[in-house]
């Protein structure tokens, strides 16, 4: 035995390499089968009536469809859907409390929805109008709300992971009964920030949940070109982090896993890694046409056979907490509200020009004031070239 810094290490006298992969892949925790029936002897965390869960999943789906269409019609400049990942969004949200701080990638509007962001607020951000909390500065779907503890989406991949570790560190110092939660995709797990953040979180013993939505694709890159490990879950052990692989399209399993992880994060002050297996039914974004690199059949199969909403709906209906009628009522109501919100947001004024220069610093410094002056002068001499819907 070698007494090495960090602990004792036993010797072996055979040349033996650790295999690059284990015989069996890490199994996937699931509770519901493909038909939405609870699997016998499955364990899950009870939550009582989940009417809100379903309605939020439905709302998310409708929002995605309407906005996607709106972009295709030229009403919106850009959009990215969450289709296929509704269970990850809503079930995770339901397992957290409002004090838990969320650091999203960009496919998690469901958590905002759950926390109370209104359809109008979503629309305002997408249209970048004067009611947008981001003051019209970011592209659509880059939501942020400090009052709902949902940190503004930064487009760079995986940079939110170390940010989340920082937030967890802050919560730990303040001894709060809350954790940081951050989301990222299978592609994001290749970024350096993923590795740095996981390692840092483990060493800091920071209460942070790393939730990876492994949806099979990173734009056109399939997971076989993204990593050669058994997905993302096995990487947790490399950093000394407890991890679990979950069926991301199973709302009950997702809820239970996040709930359990959260408990451990807060009581034991440790990070946890959850790999949620799912599928990106939609395109990467409106700038992508995924039929160019994957079969329509594959997309259809996941959308039909393993649809998170259908499976959960079946289970919930069997418990008497939902019905077809409730669903169709909801759908028509949401659709109407959504279209109205879109209409209002579209017609709404854009933010004032001064917002181009404010918030770069706490107070605009002289050079920015000068820049603003120059811009305004230019506008005065070329009024016809200045957009009419941006107030000065």
């Amino acid at each position, binding site marked *: 035995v070698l007494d090495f810094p960090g602990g004792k290490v036993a010797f072996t006298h055979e040349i033996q390499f650790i295999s690059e992969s284990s015989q069996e892949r890490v199994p996937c925790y699931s509770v519901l089968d493909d038909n939405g029936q609870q699997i016998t002897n499955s364990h899950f965390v009870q939550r009582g009536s989940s009417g809100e869960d379903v309605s939020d999943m439905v709302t998310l789906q409708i929002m995605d469809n309407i906005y996607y269409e709106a972009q295709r019609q030229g009403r919106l400049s850009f959009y990215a859907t969450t289709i296929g990942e509704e269970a990850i969004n809503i079930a995770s949200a339901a397992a957290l409390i409002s004090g838990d*701080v969320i*650091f999203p990638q960009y496919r998690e509007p469901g958590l905002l929805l759950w926390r109370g962001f209104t359809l109008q607020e979503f629309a305002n951000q997408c249209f970048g109008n004067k009611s*947008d*909390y*981001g*003051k019209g*500065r*970011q592209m659509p779907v*880059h939501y*942020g*709300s*400090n009052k709902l503890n949902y*940190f*503004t989406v*930064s*487009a*760079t991949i995986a*940079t*939110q*992971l*170390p*940010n*989340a*570790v*920082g*937030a967890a*560190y*802050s*919560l*730990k*110092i*303040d001894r709060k009964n809350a954790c*940081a939660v951050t989301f990222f995709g299978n592609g994001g797990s290749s970024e*350096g*920030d993923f*590795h*740095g*953040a996981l*390692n*840092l979180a483990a*060493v*800091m013993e920071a209460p942070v949940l790393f939730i990876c939505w492994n949806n099979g694709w990173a734009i056109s890159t399939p997971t076989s070109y993204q990593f050669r490990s058994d997905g993302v879950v096995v990487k947790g052990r490399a950093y000394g982090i407890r991890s679990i692989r979950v069926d991301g399209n199973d709302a009950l399993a997702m809820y239970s896993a996040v709930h359990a992880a959260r408990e451990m994060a807060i009581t034991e002050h440790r990070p946890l890694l959850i790999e949620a297996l799912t599928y990106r039914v939609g395109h990467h974004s409106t700038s992508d046409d995924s039929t160019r690199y994957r079969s329509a059949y594959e997309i259809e199969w996941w959308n039909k056979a393993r649809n998170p909403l259908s499976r959960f709906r079946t289970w919930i209906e069997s418990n008497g907490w939902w019905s077809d009628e409730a669903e169709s009522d909801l759908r028509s109501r949401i659709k109407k509200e959504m279209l109205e919100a879109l209409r209002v947001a579209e017609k709404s004024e854009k933010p004032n020009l001064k917002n181009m220069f*404010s*918030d*770069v*610093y*706490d*107070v*605009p*410094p*002289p*050079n920015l004031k000068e820049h603003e002056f120059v811009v305004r002068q230019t506008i005065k001499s070329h009024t016809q070239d200045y957009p009419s819907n941006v107030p000065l």
Partner: protein
Amino acid sequence: MSAIIRGAGAATALSTFNPVDSKKLAAPSRTNLPARSKRYIVAGSDASKSFGSGLRVRHSQKLIANAVATKADTSVTTGTGHELLLYEALQEGLEEEMDRDPHVCVMGEDVGHYGGSYKVTKGLADKFGDLRVLDTPICENAFTGMGIGAAMTGLRPVIEGMNMGFLLLAFNQISNNCGMLHYTSGGQFTIPVVIRGPGGVGRQLGAEHSQRLESYFQSIPGIQMVACSTPYNAKGLMKAAIRSENPVILFEHVLLYNLKEKIPDEEYICNLEEAEMVRPGEHITILTYSRMRYHVMQAAKTLVNKGYDPEVIDIRSLKPFDLYTIGNSVKKTHRVLIVEECMRTGGIGASLTAAINENFHDYLDAPVMCLSSQDVPTPYAGTLEEWTVVQPAQIVTAVEQLCQ
């Protein structure tokens, strides 16, 4: 004696100070300084109004004959005051802020019980604990990102790069998140971090450890940059940077950590956007910062002996430039020499040259001259390394050329 108080728009009790008046005010005896040293300066980003720190006041009429300002009398003459080295001044500033505000924390490599590679965080882990003075694994991007996330949730982290060059790894977080998130979130999240560390050419540290990052970061919108050069301004800038709501990058220099100076016992901070008048003069404005300030002052000795009267300004604020102080100087002397350690291409000097030409073209009697390091990686050989950095002899020659 107190500095002139300009009421124009100044909401706080700050004194604005026109360097041209320095001679008038410089004459009174130094025993009036106590009034000045008690004044606290609130760091604000409105450079045209917020002046103070009274540094100019400390230069008496005698100084113009005595070219080396820094040695003789940057000391406080209240009688009290204590002498310390620059790294101790940084540590003192940091400790005072950590005492004052429990949200201030430090993170970086070896900053804990090791006390930091340059001992700036010495003793802090013992006093404030392992959590507030955090040792991180080697992952600059990750722990800078961590600092940003912590800042967004209410802490005020001071992130240390063991060497500024290592922060190249943190560029993504600094540029995309640090600089931008206050803006893109619509003002919902603030990022009051301080990112600091030693940079510049040292003594045979090798190319990778002799980087000058200030020019790389200068374009990033949303951040502020300052460079300290004396124990007095090191402590003052450290404190001001921590109190600022904006992200501030504080550039220290590897070779200046052991500079000794007497600094006030009373609390003080320096204004982040303000340049420092090191030596008032008439013939030429020499703009410099960090270590080059000392090469300039050495050249100034020679220049004074040759009959020149250079005005030396330590620009201190690298982003934004203190164009008010610089402008007043240019309007007086009509000649500008910039002495920097950055590379010739795309350095702070290049940016400053452009700013001066744009703003003060009419006041120049000669083209702005800029002395910088060559566009080469810093060689390890001591003799070569010495010649990548601007030397006093070159400065003297440049001044003579400009003042023909």
